[in-house]
């Protein structure tokens, strides 16, 4: 059951690491934005947190997560509750949710940006999506971050160009709030796993992926990362987890999510 897999890709390692974000969340809506976070949430729901809820990315909650590849129709899916987009907001505001999202920028406060880059607000150099649901999500429920390419471009030195989600920034803390009102989960990157439980809610290294060094993490992060004296290695997927990942992604879409689809162990 818990035999570590011999061969696994970085994407599969990141899925397994990402699933951990949902382990202790109880009965909440698990939302994974993007293929790997979605497989991660599905893996958690099918193994160690069977109380999780998940949508079909359209309008229903499912008692069994849908595979992320190989489907051509919603017919036959295990839907259990109508969950149109307006009800997603009701769920968000009930706080019973944990989302794993992929911000374009993350700063030292854990603030993130998916809206726009550079230039001025009136005329950004690069317009992206807009803030979407990030402001409401970030102040309502915990969020984890999924970063396929750990670099100083994502983990920026200053503040995000457009702060789309609330973080641990004392200058922006709303009246009547304390820092602990802001809830953040894990940060999964192609190099490591981190969280925001360092001193004063700073970014803290939790584990390094096999073959990755502390120096690589430090060099590729635009601000200080708290590094404990000993840093464990991110656990390899188990054979049981690999079987569920294959079930959730029968067409191996995960092979195309990380550039070059590297092996999980890079030592």
């Amino acid at each position, binding site marked *: 059951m818990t035999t570590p897999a011999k061969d696994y890709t970085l994407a599969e390692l990141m899925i397994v690491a990402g699933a951990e974000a949902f382990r202790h969340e109880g009965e909440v809506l698990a939302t994974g934005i993007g293929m790997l976070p979605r497989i991660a949430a599905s893996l958690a729901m099918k193994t160690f947190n069977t109380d999780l809820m998940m949508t079909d990315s359209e309008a229903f909650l499912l008692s069994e997560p849908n595979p992320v590849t190989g489907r051509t129709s*919603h017919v036959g899916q295990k839907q259990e509750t109508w969950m149109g987009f307006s009800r997603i907001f009701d769920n968000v505001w009930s706080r019973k949710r944990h989302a794993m999202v992929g911000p374009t920028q993350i700063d030292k406060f854990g603030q993130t940006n998916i809206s726009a880059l550079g230039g001025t607000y009136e005329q950004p150099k*690069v317009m992206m999506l807009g803030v*979407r649901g990030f402001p409401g999500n970030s102040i309502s429920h915990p969020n984890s971050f999924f970063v396929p390419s750990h670099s100083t471009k994502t983990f920026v030195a200053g503040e995000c160009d457009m702060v789309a989600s*609330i973080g641990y920034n004392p200058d922006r803390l709303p009246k009547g709030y304390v820092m602990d009102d802001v809830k953040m989960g894990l940060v999964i990157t192609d190099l490591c796993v981190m969280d925001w439980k360092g001193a004063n809610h700073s970014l803290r290294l939790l584990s390094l992926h096999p073959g990755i060094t502390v120096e690589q993490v430090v060099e590729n992060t635009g601000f200080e990362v708290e590094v404990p004296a000993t840093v464990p290695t991110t656990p390899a997927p188990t054979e049981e987890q690999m079987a569920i990942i294959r079930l959730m992604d029968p067409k191996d879409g995960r092979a195309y999510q990380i550039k070059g689809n590297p092996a999980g162990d890079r030592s």
Partner: protein
Amino acid sequence: MSKVLSAQEVVAQIEDGMTIGIGGWGPRRKPMALIRELLRSDVKDLTVVAYGGADVGMLCAAGKVKKVVFAFVSLDFIPLEPFFRKARQTGSIETMEIDEGMMLLGLRAASWGVPYIPTQIGLGTDVIKVNPDLKVIDSPYDDKEWVAMPALKLDVSLVHVDRADKRGVCQIKGPDMYMDEWFARAADKTFVTTEEIVETDFFAQGDEARYVFWERSITTGVTLIPGGAHPTSCSPAYGFDVAHLKEYNGFAKEGGFEAYFDKYIGGKTEAEYQEAVGGLEAINALSIPVY
């Protein structure tokens, strides 16, 4: 009573400077035939409120827009709407950039006749910095501060539905009505395009009335345009047109919006548009995307 209008009669009621709401979500169930009719008109300086897709992109590209109220503008499988992007990056439009849920609250406030709805959404973010009109207020009931999301009062809303009778009873049979009910309620006048006009008795069958989300007094006008959401989806009837949206996206790189407009919209009737994209039968054959 008949509320049946032509698309031209609908657009004739939209004036320069109005605030218009557009139903649907990204590439889903947008009243695109009315957007095309707007593009053919000389209306300008609109404020557009939408969960935006190509509707917002096209209106921006055609110079119809003064201001966009948005949380995102996206074609979904093409994450960034190319013409909206261009408009932002050239600084040619004013914006009110808010959270998706804040937009819902703003529409509800307008629907309910209250000036604002308090919410914690936006606190701690740049949303409250880049929108000087967005007030942060104290609560009479606790010691926290709250964002006062103002009512997004709309002059006109445009919505696409599956079925309607000529009195304005509208049915959305797809799995999600998105925020269309609130767009409809927040507006002084709501114009719908519909895939089909049915007799009132249709709604007396089975549970058909359960798929009607606002009372007919909310509906101002009904326009019959089967396929009228194309190139966006109208689930369960048809999916969004991936090939067409890719081609549209390509015009942003080469040719520009004018070339797209000339090829598909300018000087054409809606019937001619549908001919140019393969005909109504082809639209109805577009498969629903599955994620």
